[in-house]
């Protein structure tokens, strides 16, 4: 059934990540796109410009003079009731910073592909995650993609997730600069009408163009209101994970490719596991397969939804693992390791103290779990910061990470919690 459906409707095309994302944008067909070129995102803007020039989209394309204005114009368009998008990388993303928080605070479901690239200084055009990781507390939904197919699929799903009435938050879909954005892959595309049907007609929550019902957007809050408004924004993050799961399941029914909060790769009975995001997960899977052939109980957890952080589900997935290595493609420069490492460690605190569960509930059974968890002291967790500025990570390096995890399990000695992988000493 699925096979025949695929033959009828699904196109296989060799394309780069940027091409796949631009194609998804064409199919989403936003009312407004405001964007500015930056390596390695530039192709997305260029390709989309040809769609506009050839009349393939209904989009009003605003060729802004900076990324700050790109996000500002996108916010203006979204507040005017338009489905609005932009795209960026690195320094451009950094220039948008101020406006990222405002997009989230104004609850505008803007969707933005981000082609991950290192931040200056030194200037570097290649991949790491320091751009988007820095905005992990901006209130945006952050979804990471392993390859071009995922970038394409995630972008389409992000529209539904962001625009969900239970959510109404902006979403960024991240893919690794050059590795994914410029790497050629075979991508399965949906038909235009399938995408249109999946995302549906946009119904804005509010619009400045409703001139008969004038609203004031972006008012000044003093101490008597600001806290309530920010508390409300925090509450909007709570249902995101559930919506992501629902949309991912529905997308699976349409395409045969289901998506969850993360991908648990051979993790069920794993003793040692790596946590990673983006293209590195693909490399790690190859190592897991190798080790499994040798009888090592190795697994991988690839985070897809990074913000809001699906803590409970991740803790459950990792609770049986004895040693975990978190791979971070950015540093926090806090001496505490990378951002994902810090999140995983914080999440595991609940495991150790019995506060994890379906919704963090306490019951007799939970208390029992907690006692058992305390007895086993939970998994040992170490961190590797790798791949900054596009430094390659290869199979050999990841093999060494798993070897260390096996040693930790064997000896009980964790050693240095934070290491740098692939840097010259």
């Amino acid at each position, binding site marked *: 059934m699925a096979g025949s459906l695929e033959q009828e409707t699904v196109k296989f095309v060799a394309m780069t990540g940027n091409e796949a994302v631009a194609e998804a944008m064409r199919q989403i067909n936003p*009312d*407004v796109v*405001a964007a500015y070129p930056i390596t390695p995102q530039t192709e997305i803007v260029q390709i989309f410009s040809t769609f506009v020039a050839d009349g393939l989209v*209904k*989009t*009003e394309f*605003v*060729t*802004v*003079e*900076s990324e*700050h*204005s*790109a996000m*500002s*114009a*996108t*916010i*203006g*368009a*979204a*507040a*005017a*009731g*338009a489905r*609005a998008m932009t795209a960026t990388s690195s320094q451009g993303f950094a220039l948008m910073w*101020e*406006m990222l928080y*405002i997009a989230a605070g*104004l609850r505008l479901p803007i969707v933005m592909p981000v082609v991950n690239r290192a931040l200056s200084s030194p200037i570097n055009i290649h991949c790491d995650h320091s751009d988007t990781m820095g905005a992990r507390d901006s209130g945006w939904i952050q979804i990471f993609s392993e390859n071009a197919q995922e970038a394409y699929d995630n972008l389409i799903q992000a529209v539904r997730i962001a625009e969900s009435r239970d959510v109404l938050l902006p979403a960024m879909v991240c893919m690794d600069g050059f590795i994914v954005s410029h790497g050629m892959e075979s991508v399965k595309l949906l038909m235009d009408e399938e995408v249109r049907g999946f995302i549906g007609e946009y119904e804005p929550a509010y619009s*400045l*163009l*409703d*001139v008969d019902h*004038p*609203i*004031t*957007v*972006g*008012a*000044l*809050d*003093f101490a008597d*209101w600001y806290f309530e408004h920010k508390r409300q924004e925090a509450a909007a993050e709570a249902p995101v994970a559930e919506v992501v799961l629902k949309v991912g399941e529905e997308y699976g029914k349409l395409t045969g490719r289901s998506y969850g909060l993360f991908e648990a790769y051979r993790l069920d009975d794993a003793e040692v596991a790596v946590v990673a995001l983006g293209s590195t997960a693909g490399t790690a899977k190859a190592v897991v397969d190798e080790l499994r052939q040798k009888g090592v109980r190795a697994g991988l957890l690839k985070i897809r939804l990074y913000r809001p952080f699906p803590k409970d589900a991740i803790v459950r997935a990792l609770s049986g693992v004895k040693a975990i290595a978190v791979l971070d493609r950015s540093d926090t420069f806090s001496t505490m390791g990378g951002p994902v490492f810090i999140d995983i460690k914080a999440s595991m605190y609940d495991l150790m103290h019995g506060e994890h569960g379906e919704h963090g509930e306490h019951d007799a059974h939970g208390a029992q779990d907690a006692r058992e968890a305390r007895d086993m002291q939970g998994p040992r967790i170490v961190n590797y910061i790798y791949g900054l500025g596009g430094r390659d990570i290869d199979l050999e390096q990841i093999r060494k990470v798993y070897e260390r995890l096996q040693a930790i399990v064997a000896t009980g000695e964790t050693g240095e919690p934070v290491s740098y992988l692939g840097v010259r000493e």
Partner: protein
Amino acid sequence: MANLRELSRKGELLTGGHRACAGCGAPVAVRQVLKAVDTPVVVGCATGCLEVTTTIYPYSAWNVPFIHSAFENVAATVSGIEAAYRSLKRQGKIQRDIQFVAFGGDGGTYDIGFQSLSGAMERGHDMVYICYDNQAYMNTGIQRSSATPRGAATTTSPAGRVITAGKTQYRKDLTAVMAAHDIPYVAQTTIGHWNDLITKVRKAFEVEGPAFVNILTPCRLGWQIDPADSIEICRKAVDTCFWPLYEVENGVWKITLKPREKKPITEWLRPQGRFRHLFKPGNEKLIEEIQADVDRRWEMLQKRCEVGG
């Protein structure tokens, strides 16, 4: 020519109850600007006195759709709104005709918002940008901007024992800079010349494409004047040719009000506390220099108007 009786029949689009200082020029500018437009209008506003005083949650003084997002980006924000309007109208999702206006102070326009303004004007969005120019960062407590005139004392250009002038640099001529963008309409006016202002803003709304109107808007606190003099001081700015009233319509420069008699610059400077130090012994040369600069710019403007008109 506008008629006040006619204008008074229009509803108030900016209500009382906003928190601007007594005698503030900004709400006067807004009231006059919004009197000049008959179609529904959407307002964008840069961070600044106007935005802060008119939208203290849950009290909005605006009877029109209003958005503020940040300081340096009102032109970009409104260009996004205007793009959304064009897109939705083309798709038949909106039928109404709507106009778009952006308000920014001199800080949000001459300085931090200059890039976003320049970009929006160059792209040709159908919007009116209004700069309510009170010649310093008044919202943060009177700091100098590139609109602050030479000789004005501000909290970041105080008249000291060594630097006695206050601000030592001349102000940026932003109206001319905007004229150089070759957009359909650029004008300069004051809140003290309501008829000139409304006539110009009407033109600004009527043209297709971007328009920029620079409105001298007194800040009684920063200028150190009696609040009752906020309108009177504008007439002095024009009579001394410190702030000539002119417009540039499709590249044609035109002075819209020529003072019958050009008054000495001291008539503009003396009533304002921010220039008080200029009248201390030893600063005579500074006043001469300021006068010479005003004369030079006035001559240049007249020449442009001869050539253009």
